[in-house]
């Protein structure tokens, strides 16, 4: 006896000829997507919990008000030891306003607009069954998502590294505020990359005929996830732009 699976009974001509109706498959995939969005809600919730918790605790007052030089992520050499003979002479007090709420709202706006474009694309596809226009709108949504990715990347690289007062004069690190923001902006960036991938997929599939006027279920799946990312971006931006100063 072995673990092999016996070939299905010959009654069905060798291959089990059962096909589930597309609607059944779609309903199942939508349920799976909503559950996955549930897990994503908890993940984004944990990120915002981290942000609010660190802000609330504000250990030794270093939530976001540390002295230090503005330095960017890649410029370790920036800290020119010789010029300052190893100690921080006159630190320019930088209030890390690097992340203006305008930039945050720009990223959220991009997610919302691109979600609107995908939703519109899905509506027109279902109404007019015109795959061509659907694929061009999908491409447009993808481009908006990629712009969002670029803006988020710029935000990430613009976080100032500050000198954390410790007896080791070379330790440059980010304050708790910068760390929490880095995680939130990074998470949005990751979601936007996935959205761009999905948008490109929709565009190619509609050109290749995999998505047509009457086989549009996957467009709806991507639209649901896209709208969720837009909602999550708005919620996190709302929190990070209104609750910023130390209590």
């Amino acid at each position: 006896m072995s673990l092999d699976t016996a070939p299905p009974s010959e009654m069905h001509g060798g291959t089990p000829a059962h096909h589930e109706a597309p609607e059944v498959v779609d309903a199942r995939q939508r349920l799976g997507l909503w559950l996955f969005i549930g897990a994503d809600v908890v993940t984004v919730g944990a990120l915002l919990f981290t942000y609010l918790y660190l802000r609330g605790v504000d250990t030794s007052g270093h939530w976001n008000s540390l002295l230090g030089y503005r330095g960017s992520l890649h410029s370790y050499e920036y800290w020119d030891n010789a010029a300052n003979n190893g100690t921080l002479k006159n630190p320019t007090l930088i209030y890390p306003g690097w992340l203006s709420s305008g930039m945050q709202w720009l990223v959220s706006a991009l997610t919302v607009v691109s979600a609107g474009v995908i939703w519109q694309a899905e509506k027109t596809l279902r109404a007019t069954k015109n795959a061509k226009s659907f694929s061009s709108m999908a491409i447009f949504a993808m481009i908006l998502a990629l712009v969002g990715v670029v803006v988020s990347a710029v935000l990430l690289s613009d976080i100032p590294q500050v000198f954390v007062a410790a007896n080791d004069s070379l330790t440059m690190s980010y304050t708790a505020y910068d760390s929490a923001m880095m995680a939130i902006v990074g998470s949005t960036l990751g979601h936007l990359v996935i959205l761009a991938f999905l948008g490109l997929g929709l565009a190619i599939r509609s050109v290749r005929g995999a998505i047509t006027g009457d086989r549009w279920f996957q467009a709806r799946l991507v639209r649901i996830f896209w709208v969720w990312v837009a909602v999550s971006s708005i919620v996190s931006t709302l929190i990070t732009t209104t609750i910023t100063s130390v209590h």
Partner: protein
Amino acid sequence: MTTTLEPTESVTQPRGGGLARRQNFGTAVAGGVIFAFLGWLLARKLFYTGSDNFSDQVAVMTCVGWMIGFWIGIGAFNAPFKWLLGNDNSRDDDLYYAGHNQGRARYWKYTTDHKVVGVQYIIVTMGLLGVGGILAMAIRTELITPGTHFVNQQVYNSFIAIHGMVMILALIVAVAGPWGNFVMPIMIGARDMAFPRLNALSLWSLVSAATLLVGTLAVGGLPVGWVVLGTVADQAGVGMDFFAMAIVVFTVSTTVASVNLITTVISMRTKGMTLDRLPIFVWGTVVTAALALYAFPFFFIAEANQILDRTVSTSFYVATGGGTSWLQANLFWLMGHPEVYVILIPAVAALFEISTVMARKPLFSYRTAVGAMVSLAGLSAVVWAHHMFTSGWAPSLGGPFMVTTELISIPTGIFFLVLIGTLWRGSVWMRLPTVWMFGFIFNFLIGGVTGIYLSDVPLDEQLHGTMFVTAHFHYIFVGSVLFGAIAALAYWFPKVTGRYLNEFLGRISFWLVFIGIQITFGAMFLSGLKGMPRRDASYSLAFEHTNFISTIGAYIIMIGMLILFGAIVTSWRHGEPSGPNPWHANSLEWLVPTPVPLENFDVMPVVTEDPYHFDKEIVSS
């Protein structure tokens, strides 16, 4: 660890399909190693060698390389890119990837058939339990004498951390993995899981994450305990990055598996399989999946923060930068306690299922059993801070969390009522699964009662961080969950292999493991009462006798488990043939032939009643 299976028929050469059809575990490991090396090289070029975080950045990039390489090698990315390019798998492709007539090779591939994934989970669980077992024996050998003679403190501290995490990983997947995948879809009358490819992704992500976790021993170990508390984890070396990356991937794999499991049960039940007629084991897996779906993202964020702290110098857990290690403790335990119920509930649900068949009686108050599992899952989300009663984080929260934690004893109390109630006035068939079930009843009671002591804040101020806590959760993990997992293995072994698990060896191993547990963890309770802290490589003379007795008990458990392992391996091919329905049960998995055909059912069954009517003649196909 390959099981010795003889090929049944000549493996037909894969028809076309190019490289994608030749990908297997070998190409996965090759891809993993190559990309890990590339990641290592790239990191050494990219990052500034002078910074404190250089070694961590290189380690994280190496781990990322291993993960991506492993996924590419096993073929996880094939389907997404085929989706992107618009050419989906043909029906023939789907059948090939489901392992259609490929003999044993399909166990080494990215196979989507839920039965193959189920067997793969058995192998992975036994492998993890083996590694954890070796570390357990090394720990107990060190603790024979007060000094640090066998290993020095640093190596010992790595042993306890990796032993802890590997065993937690093994027990999370020990019941929900093999039986949630192999048996549950057939039980509800489905042809496969809702998302078959996602199922294979979860299994293989677990394999690559477990490799990294065990790999920490090779890169300097993880001398910080499995709770990796922020402050002490800062001092850990590169092993901490391997650990964090392993957890990041493991949590994603488990969350995705939960989505898969819940969707399967909700949307793929056959006609007539209403919620009232669901076998109780299916309820257990769904409740567990929902709890895991909620809990594991916290662990993902807790470890992602730690990776950022170590590679990019953020300050999530660093006091000088404004962070606090209490954040890590909170995020960790927000997952920590739900996780231990994710481990417990499937084992209890499997035992409920077994108790009905072995007592020839319906489950005692089916709805109360489901209610108890659901309320336990709900409660477990609001009890996490009892792990931090003595951390000084929030002394005022001691009261509320004492209340929620002690309420847990009501649903767990119901588990006993249901189990004893089902067996009461039944004609109890003392086969191997039943023997392990009675072991569960004995151990789970001791584990449960000692939990109540720890939930009381004044008592916890004496018992927290002592071996008493260690003994408590070993009575639950080893005494209850492992006994439930072995009972489930003995019960469904005939459905997987068509043979009985060797009863004679099974009973010998039961008595050895059972007695070993009473000795090992009974003496550990006494060490804890006397005041021996946890995770001590060495201890004062006052604890000499109790630790010596514990180590003797540990060796007895080892012998018992080795005999069980021998029994499993030999029974797989040489066990006594059992036929499709050896226990004369009514649930659907016993009404399909053994070996189970690829799509489980030729004709989808229509269910008219729940599987607990033992008084009628069983119609077995």
